[in-house]
């Protein structure tokens, strides 16, 4: 056992190291957040704080983090700070730092020696190997702090002395894009602070296994925040662009609600963008009502078609069919169907359904095509949900002398309902925003002057099928289709909006409709789950 190194269970005096690393983490987090503020343009990049421009301040933040890390690493190596490091930081860390240092070395060489591959390539390779060796050869406390500290000090120092400033732009040869310093610096600083936080997290827990776990915690946690940031950015972008269009002419009391039979008019909500037709002579504020109604009919029809079929097939596959080659083939087929591109579904609808059902674009063909797309997901998820119902329930029911079908209806399906609804929610999210097949089988006039009146169009007829519905057999508009045709149409027919403005408003309404459908789905899932557990 002589080669096993043992460390004390509790560090005797780790307060200094703990304080310093907590301080570094704090600075790193603040710098990280500040970079996002700049990236999202909530603050102006030319602003100054205490006489320093914010960009330089970010550089200073990096320098502080880097200096602190270097101090921590060296202090730990010289036993000023009580830690329990492993003998090496590991090859993975070494490779990552080697690559980072190679990039740094290459950039520095091109700045000093010019853009000649024969010159900067060897420099980059040498610096990279140096970074690798510095990370791998010394003890873990030095190997996982000094390379980071070096990068941060170089980068931060370069920014802090004004090497990159707000007016500076980088236009790489391989891209026509230009990266202004006001964006480049915050992006670099974001990555730099992530590195610093990882290293400081390791140091805070005293390196070793504990340190790796803490470092990973900070890294993974910040990735989550990064993802949320991207989502928030997307939503904020759509809302800021579309809100003004959506609220054009809207007010809480400007409208009039006629009370039937009494003849009184009450003040009512006015919301022209949501409640007006898109085209037509007397429409002042063109709205998206036809598209909203069209989307709702599409989703309703697709669900009505796909959910009973999907659940029925899932019940047959799980409860009746013996597991074997047949169920495997069905499984592969459904997975394949789910990953089939939507335009292929659209083409199928155009070539097969349209001539047989309506002879032209129509709501009902759109509903069927979207239903085909929804079907595999409903089948897959309800199959999973049914398989997850414990066999004990089926045994108990059978032992009471209850038949298989009754058991499925009263025990298995209710227990599988929440899982099935989850699948339907996911699928509805996909089909509500689907555009490609609608272009082929569904869409009609780009600026419809009335919404599809499906309910009012049912008529009895003397011949089979005895009920006809002209509206279902006619083309209509849906939100994604409306968005596409508005953006590609060139000129918007009304002067009040440009077609981009109208497009943003449509996008926001589409987002709200999808969120609303989600809410309905989540609500019904909660309802069924509560029935199972309360």
């Amino acid at each position, binding site marked *: 056992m002589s080669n096993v190194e043992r460390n004390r269970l509790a560090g005797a005096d780790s307060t200094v190291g703990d304080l310093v690393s907590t301080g570094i983490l704090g600075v790193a987090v603040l710098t990280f957040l500040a970079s996002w503020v700049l990236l999202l343009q909530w603050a102006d990049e030319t602003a100054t704080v205490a006489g320093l421009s914010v960009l330089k301040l970010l550089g200073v933040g990096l320098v502080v983090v880097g200096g602190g890390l270097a101090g921590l690493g060296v202090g730990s190596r010289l036993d000023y700070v009580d830690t329990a490091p492993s003998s090496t930081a590991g090859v993975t860390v070494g490779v990552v730092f080697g690559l980072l240092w190679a990039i740094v070395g290459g950039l520095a060489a091109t700045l000093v020696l010019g853009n000649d591959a024969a010159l900067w390539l060897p420099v980059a390779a040498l610096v990279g190997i140096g970074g690798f060796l510095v990370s791998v050869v010394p003890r873990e406390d030095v190997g996982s702090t000094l390379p980071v500290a070096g990068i941060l000090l170089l980068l931060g120092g370069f920014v802090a002395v004004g090497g990159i400033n707000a007016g500076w732009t980088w236009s790489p040869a391989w891209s026509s894009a230009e990266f202004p310093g006001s964006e480049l610096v915050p992006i670099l600083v974001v990555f730099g602070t992530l590195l610093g936080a990882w290293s400081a997290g390791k140091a805070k827990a005293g390196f070793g296994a504990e340190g790796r776990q803490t470092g990973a915690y900070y890294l993974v946690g910040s990735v989550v925040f990064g993802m949320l940031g991207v989502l928030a950015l997307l939503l904020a972008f759509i809302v800021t662009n579309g809100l003004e269009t959506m609220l054009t002419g809207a007010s809480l009391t400007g409208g009039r609600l006629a009370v039937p039979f009494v003849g009184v008019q009450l003040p009512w909500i006015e919301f022209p963008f949501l409640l007006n037709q898109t085209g037509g002579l007397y429409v002042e504020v063109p709205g998206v009502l036809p598209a909203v109604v069209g989307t709702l009919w599409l989703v309703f029809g697709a669900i009505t078609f796909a959910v009973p079929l999907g659940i029925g097939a899932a019940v047959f596959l799980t409860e009746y069919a*013996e597991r074997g080659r047949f169920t495997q083939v069905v499984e592969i087929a459904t997975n394949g169907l789910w990953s089939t591109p939507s335009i292929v579904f659209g083409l199928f609808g155009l070539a097969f359904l349209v001539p047989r059902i309506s002879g032209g674009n129509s709501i009902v063909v759109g509903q069927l095509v979207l239903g085909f797309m929804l079907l595999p997901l409903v089948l897959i998820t309800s199959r999973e949900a049914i398989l997850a119902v*414990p066999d*004990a*329930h089926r*045994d*108990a*029911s*059978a*032992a*009471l*002398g*209850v*038949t298989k079908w*009754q058991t499925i209806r*009263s*025990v298995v399906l*209710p*227990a599988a309902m929440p899982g099935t609804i989850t699948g339907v929610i996911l699928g509805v999210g996909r089909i509500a925003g689907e555009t490609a097949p609608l272009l082929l089988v569904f869409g009609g006039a780009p600026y419809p002057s009335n919404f599809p009146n499906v309910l009012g169009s049912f008529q009895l007829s003397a011949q089979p099928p005895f009920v006809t519905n002209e509206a279902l057999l006619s083309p209509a508009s849906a939100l994604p289709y409306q968005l596409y045709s508005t953006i590609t149409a060139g000129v918007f027919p009304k002067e009040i909006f440009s077609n981009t403005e109208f497009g943003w408003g449509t996008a926001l309404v589409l987002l709200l409709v999808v969120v609303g459908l989600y809410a309905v789905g989540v609500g019904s899932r909660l309802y069924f789950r509560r029935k*199972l*557990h*309360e």
Partner: protein
Amino acid sequence: MSKTDTRDGTEQELTTTGETSEEVREAWTEYEFAGDAKLAAEALDVYYGGEQALQSVSLEIPDESVTALIGPSGCGKSTFLRCLNRMNDRINSARVEGSVTLDGEEIYSDGVNLVELRKRVGMVFQEPNPFPKSIADNISYGPRKHGDLDTGLLARLLGRDDTEAERELVERALRRAALWEEVNDRLDDNALGLSGGQQQRLCIARCLAVDPDVILMDEPASALDPIATAKIEDLIEELAEEYAVVVVTHNMQQAARISDQTAVFLTGGQLVEYGETDQIFEHPQSQRVEDYITGKFG
């Protein structure tokens, strides 16, 4: 296989096939009791795929008493129990040969209605398995599905509402299973909120609600704590006043406490000895059974 008397305490010899040299004797499994047998198995063989799980088991089970089936793991006692209400039909690879009669009627003939059979031969499982429904719905589930209770909208419109009958049935079953006092104020709560012991008594009540003749129990207390086990045991003894109760258990003390007669299954799916419980535990006829009961084997 040579026949040796092992009752004088000599070591049992293992033949090359791994079987003990002792034979299963008719005399050890012939148990006489007054009245007709409620359930009778005759030369019952069960195979799972190619593997034989029961070897020619013949056993008569009297009414209004507790019959315990004991034996080591894998000896076929649960398999035998599941033959009595044809639950083995639900396992694809299982094949049953031989005969089982309920009140003299063959249950393995072609025309047997499984719904009727399982209504008369109820079953309680090892793990409590209430449905994720309310306590009252768990009890009334069986009768409703059998059409004995109808509380649907149509029935109410036609004036044949069984709501009152259902309430009475729920109360009767829960009282019978000694659970009424504990749950009568929360019949509409979900059954999954009950403790393990309460859930198991609920499962017994659910079985009683169908009004069976025979109750099969597959290690009904093995997943429960000692106090809940004691309650279940008391309940089993009470139920034996009205029903034929067949209990599989691997707990020999439990078998000794609650049963009137005991059948000992040993490895290979053989019924080795069947007789009055006192006699089995105090003077077993077979050496292998004595070894098993005294803990030398199994």
